[in-house]
């Protein structure tokens, strides 16, 4: 996978390499175009995973204390001497991550990331990778992110009449009402 061809991805905002993994941040409006390009021109033939992360409240409480590294405590890292370190800011609330895999003699992995705010939606990639069907339903169910053009946009893990989206950070553990038997 040459650097050149990744740069040709439609709607590319930035690429970054962390822990040996490549992440392409793309414009959410052009996710389908980017997916088609990556599948057809760069041969990423399998969508292995599709998931989202809610960054609401990210860095609101700084973290301090021991940072484990192979060398032990890293005294030069901010936050390691009692001062709070705040993780680097994120552009929007939700990140939708597409994990792609090239099943071929030259295997490669790629993470495509699209950033969304609360009221924004994303185009469905089911026409590109049929495997996205249930994954997009799961992200809708858990985060409330709407995928435009999904053939069956209903909840998948929670009951159909469920209120709220459990994996959002503002949905607390124990937030669901408990029904007791014998109660009116």
């Amino acid at each position, binding site marked *: 996978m040459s650097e050149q061809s990744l740069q040709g991805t439609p709607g590319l905002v930035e690429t970054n390499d962390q822990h040996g993994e490549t992440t392409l941040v793309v414009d959410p409006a052009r996710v389908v175009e980017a997916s088609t390009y990556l599948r057809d021109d760069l041969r990423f033939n399998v969508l292995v995973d599709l998931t989202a992360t809610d960054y609401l409240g990210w860095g609101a409480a700084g973290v301090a204390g021991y940072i484990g590294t*192979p060398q032990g405590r890293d005294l030069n890292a901010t936050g390691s001497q009692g001062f709070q370190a705040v993780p680097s800011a994120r552009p929007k609330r939700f990140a939708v991550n597409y994990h792609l895999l090239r099943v071929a003699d030259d295997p490669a992995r790629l993470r495509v990331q699209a950033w969304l705010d609360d009221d924004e939606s994303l185009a469905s990639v089911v026409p590109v*990778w049929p495997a996205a069907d249930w994954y997009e339903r799961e992200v809708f169910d858990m985060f409330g992110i709407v995928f435009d053009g999904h053939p069956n946009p209903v909840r998948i893990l929670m009951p159909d009449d469920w209120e709220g989206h459990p994996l959002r950070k503002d949905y607390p553990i124990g937030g669901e009402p408990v029904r007791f038997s014998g109660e009116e």
Partner: protein
Amino acid sequence: MSVLPTTRIYEGTRIPSPCPTILEIDPEQHALDDILSINFGPNHPSTHGVLRLIVDLDGEHIAGIRAVIGYLHTGFEKTMEHKTYWKAITYPERIDYLAFQSNELVFVLAIEKLLALETPEKAQWMRMCLAELNRIHSHLVWLGTSALEIGAISMFWYAFRERDMILDLFEMVTGVRMHTRYFQVGGLAEDIPEGFYAQARAAAKRMPKAVDEYEALLDNNKIWLERTKGIGLLSADDALALGQSGPMLRASGVDWDLRRATPYLHYEEVDFEVPVYPNGDVYDRYKVHMDEMRQSARIVTQCLDRLEALRGSAWISDNRKVVLPPREELHTSMESLIHHFKIVTEGFRVPEGEVYVAIESARGEQGCYLVSDGGPKPWRVHFRAPSFAALQATATCVRGTAIADMVAVAASLDPVMGDVDR
């Protein structure tokens, strides 16, 4: 990686459109009143847990199908966001309760990747050894229950005989038979007991013979052959489009195994073959499982050779910022006591970042996506469940089969509902 040249399972694609997981019938055909809609599950013994299938029957044949999941949704991912890493390790095992060590392994590997933590040789070989024993364990449960559903009842007892032998090994090493929580960030929770080597060697020696016995029971059984051959077809292209992995892909003629394609731990140092079969039917999925058990036994033997040479060496990293100090030090060293207290109460902190780690579990690509904000609890954990992907192929695989075959097909996808619903 190659696709077997003989692969001619069917022409074109059979993935339903527009929704790839729902096989729909014409409403007009439904109105003609010769379509019977039945509800299969969620509580039915042959759904491997709680899977509900809504089936439209045209006589004995399946005209439409829709899978409904979520009955075993437990909110593991949400719960793990509220636990320190050290405590969260117990959760992934309960997701896929048959391949528990694979889930545990992938989560631990993801944490170690964020920490850039080196683990001792002995821990890596032991992780491989247990992961392969666990693969055999998972395949045995699959074999026993799948054969049972098709009517080969005796198969169940033979498969569970060997399964017990493997559970005994887990008990010997970890103290429990299932959900072992033996892999620790940095290595293993305990040293390997001395008796393990000989008993594991005997089990690895026994397995190929046991697999021969199973094959003798099934491969000469006319009913078994007729119920599995040519049923539940899935072509290589459709399998890739539906995101299949593991035995599903290999039975459709795609020569793909993460242990060989992108080796982790020490898989590049052991000899094993990746079984590939070209027909994409239930029978080939069964053959892949059988061959994998033989290959896993081979890997276990090679791991034991290495482990025996590593007797007496460290089984866990000595990085005290992450790893608990040895018990005996707590009585004499103030620093050890502090570290112990900090790691247990507050948890160790993992540097900010996001990683995706994937390993080959018993049912395919088991992935873990982990986001850390630099604190002691994961910001987000997501498990890429191979069963979830496999179940998406239900509609494609059962197309055109009879209701009785549907049970065989659903079993061959090897879904573990805990893994599907998480």
